[in-house]
């Protein structure tokens, strides 16, 4: 590790010299009084004039340097293939920042200016779900990471790789109060998020950094994927690269995902082929387009229904075997149920009743056989409870489901006899008919309140579809609050057309995640579309500025129901339970008096916007105008006042 500046005043005096030089250019030295360093309390700094030092310190001999450790760190980042680094600028990683934009040429990675660390991470979350690889995040090790923590938790729960690099001033003798470096420093920076990152490290040399950086990437990308964190100490960033350092960047070889044990795969195939009514339940299953195609092949081979819990784009929505719109019936009918990365398998098989005394009951047959294939069995922590209720299965494979499917398909095909094949065909015909009826039911359901104002979510969904159906579209938002209409009505069949939910349920994900996903889609020329909840956008709306500044094309259609509506329903439930104040649930949960004007909010940040729109007849022309803006490469937002769900 470099020690060339290990005099107590090394970096501090270097900075003072720079400030002094600038001030001297601006005014005669005798016009401003010199102030001793001891008179610079942190809180008073903005009020003081620039410093002038009439006598340069004796040890301030180093004013410039050719390459610092942060340059090498950027070399490492480039070797890992990061396209972007998302960050709110911060002094604890100022050297990294400067190295990215100058030494690295601000390309691969390009610095994306964010306005909240939670947005930085959520942007990376959305990006990773489209691109299948992580973005890099820079943040202060203390206040920046604290801002980022909820978004990291979301990504952790969602098993999405995020690459977090935080600045810190570990050496107490190098901290300058003038820059807030004492409260911005921490002994163990990663401690506060260690429960929900997969791995972290504090490298103390540049070679250590290189090896840990490559290791971190590999760990993040090994299923189950998850965020990782490296501390980039400010001294390591800013010190010169030592002569004869002999630095090298290790080779990155991603780990192949683990496949299920061959004996267990054979047993699973046997159970599935012999079953009268097998069922496949999927959640965070498909990592790639190939994963979707493998699941189609397995389902068609068995003519088995698929229930998609919508954690990823897993299975074509309008495939005849997709029975997600009738999952209760499908589960109740099944005698063998295969869970593929079924994060909350228990809730696929049971119901819970939210009355005064919560009760649950199974909806599956008591003798149904359960098979699970999940990387969740390979990696579980204790504190945060994102592992869901325990499900007693008959066959458990601690393996990556997508990686296991080729062998499961092969084994299944090997076991199918002519008799079974005929039975499968009969089953498939019935399922296709049920799928068609469910689709017709969804269309009928959508027709109600068609002309209502506020606009029905089904109408809004259909109006958007009419405008994007001939484009290469990518729906990048969560849909739970939107009654899942797109998944019920639109034909999804590509991996990038849907990216699931936020994982941990933390609000404030959708707006930045959709911007991040749109950033990933940009180079592919896709039309990114988001149904944006009002309450979510209010958490960190400045991500709209990031989208405008970086010319990230994204159509955001507000689902503005003027409430934290889920909370409104929760409070309503409590009021009803107590038979009191049932007309007061809106207190603390709704955005009334005044109404928010999201169009003006977006416009103030340089985003094309229209609204509020509350007449459904106004939607089509507004959508055409907004899409034209997005096709020019810019973001656009339509504020639509909507029905609650």
């Amino acid at each position: 590790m470099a020690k060339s500046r290990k005099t107590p005043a090394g970096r501090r005096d270097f900075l003072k010299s720079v400030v002094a030089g600038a001030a001297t250019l601006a005014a005669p030295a005798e016009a401003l009084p010199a102030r001793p360093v001891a008179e610079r309390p942190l809180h008073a700094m903005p009020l003081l004039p620039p410093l002038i030092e009439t006598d340069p310190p004796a040890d301030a001999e180093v004013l410039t340097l050719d390459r610092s450790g942060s340059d090498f760190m950027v070399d490492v980042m480039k070797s890992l293939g990061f396209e972007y680094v998302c960050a709110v600028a911060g002094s604890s990683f100022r050297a990294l920042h400067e190295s990215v934009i100058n030494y690295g040429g601000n390309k691969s990675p390009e610095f994306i200016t964010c306005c909240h660390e939670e947005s930085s991470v959520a942007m990376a979350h959305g990006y990773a779900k489209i691109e299948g690889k992580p973005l890099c995040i820079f943040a202060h090790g203390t206040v920046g990471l604290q801002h980022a923590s909820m978004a990291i938790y979301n990504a952790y729960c969602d098993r999405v790789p995020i690459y977090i690099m935080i600045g810190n001033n570990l050496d107490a003798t190098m901290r300058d109060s003038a820059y807030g470096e004492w409260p911005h420093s921490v002994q163990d920076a990663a401690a506060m998020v260690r429960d929900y990152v997969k791995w972290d490290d504090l490298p103390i040399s540049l070679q250590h950094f290189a090896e840990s950086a490559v290791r971190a990437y590999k760990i993040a990308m090994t299923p189950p994927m998850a965020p990782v964190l490296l501390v980039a100490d400010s001294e390591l960033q800013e010190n010169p690269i030592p002569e004869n350092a002999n630095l090298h960047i290790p080779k990155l070889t991603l780990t192949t995902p683990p496949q299920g044990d061959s004996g267990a795969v054979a047993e699973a195939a046997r159970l599935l082929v012999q079953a009268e009514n097998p069922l496949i339940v999927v959640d965070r299953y498909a990592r790639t387009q190939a994963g979707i195609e493998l699941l189609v092949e397995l389902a068609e081979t068995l003519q088995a229904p698929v229930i998609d819990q919508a954690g990823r784009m897993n299975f074509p929505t309008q495939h005849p075997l997709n029975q997600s719109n009738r999952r209760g019936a499908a589960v109740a009918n099944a005698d063998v149920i295969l869970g593929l990365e079924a994060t909350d398998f228990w809730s696929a098989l049971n119901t819970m009743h939210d009355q005064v005394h919560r009760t649950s009951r199974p909806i599956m047959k008591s003798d149904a056989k359960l098979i699970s294939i999940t990387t969740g069995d390979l990696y579980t922590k204790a504190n945060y409870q994102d592992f869901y209720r325990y499900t007693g299965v008959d066959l458990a494979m601690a393996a990556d489901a997508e990686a296991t499917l080729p062998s499961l398909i092969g084994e299944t095909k090997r076991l199918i006899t002519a008799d079974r094949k005929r039975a499968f065909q009969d089953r498939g015909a019935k399922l296709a008919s049920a799928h068609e009826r469910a689709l017709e039911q969804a269309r009928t359901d959508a027709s109600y309140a068609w002309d209502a104002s506020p606009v029905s979510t089904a109408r809004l969904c259909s109006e958007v579809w009419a405008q994007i159906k001939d484009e290469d579209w990518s729906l990048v938002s969560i849909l739970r609050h939107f009654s899942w209409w797109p998944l019920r009505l639109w034909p999804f069949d590509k991996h990038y057309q849907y990216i699931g939910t936020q994982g941990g349920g933390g609000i404030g994900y959708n707006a930045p995640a959709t911007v991040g996903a749109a950033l990933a889609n940009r180079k592919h020329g896709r039309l990114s579309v988001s149904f944006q909840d009002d309450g979510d956008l209010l958490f960190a709306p400045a991500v709209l500025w990031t989208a405008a500044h970086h010319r990230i094309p994204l159509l955001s259609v507000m689902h503005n129901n003027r409430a934290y509506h889920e909370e409104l329903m929760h409070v309503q439930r409590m009021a009803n339970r107590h038979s009191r104040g049932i007309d007061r649930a809106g207190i603390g949960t709704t955005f009334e008096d005044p109404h928010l004007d999201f169009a003006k909010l977006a416009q103030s940040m340089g985003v094309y916007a229209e609204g509020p729109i509350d007449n459904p007849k106004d939607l089509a022309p507004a959508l055409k105008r907004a899409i034209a803006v997005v096709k020019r490469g810019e973001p656009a937002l339509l504020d639509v006042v909507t029905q609650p769900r």
Partner: protein
Amino acid sequence: MKRFRAYNSAILVALVMMLIFSSTRVSVLSAAQGSKSSDVPAGNAENGKRVFTNHGCYECHGREGQGSTMTGPRIAPDPVPFEVFARYLRKPTGEMPPYTAQVVPEQDLADIYAFLRSRPHPPAAKTNPLLK
């Protein structure tokens, strides 16, 4: 604000609810076709709309009673027979919170019911070009 939401479980619960409600709706709607209008107490639809909003019914069922797969079934313009409707509101057997007589008087129920029945029937989905 409650940040944590049990997403996956809630999704499934809601969808199962939908199935339960849907089944109930289908069977009861058949019964409703044979019921007499005299079985329904007189109600004021305009006041029913106000009460429907103020009592929070719209939160789960939509402002037109159109329903949602996530929160509550469609209840307009063809609600279940009034007797079933009133009984269910007082003592729901599914996920709906109870509306006791202490907070929703009988006349309010009649008015809400009148409001629900006053909602327009949509044209058939097959005739809607955006739903093809």
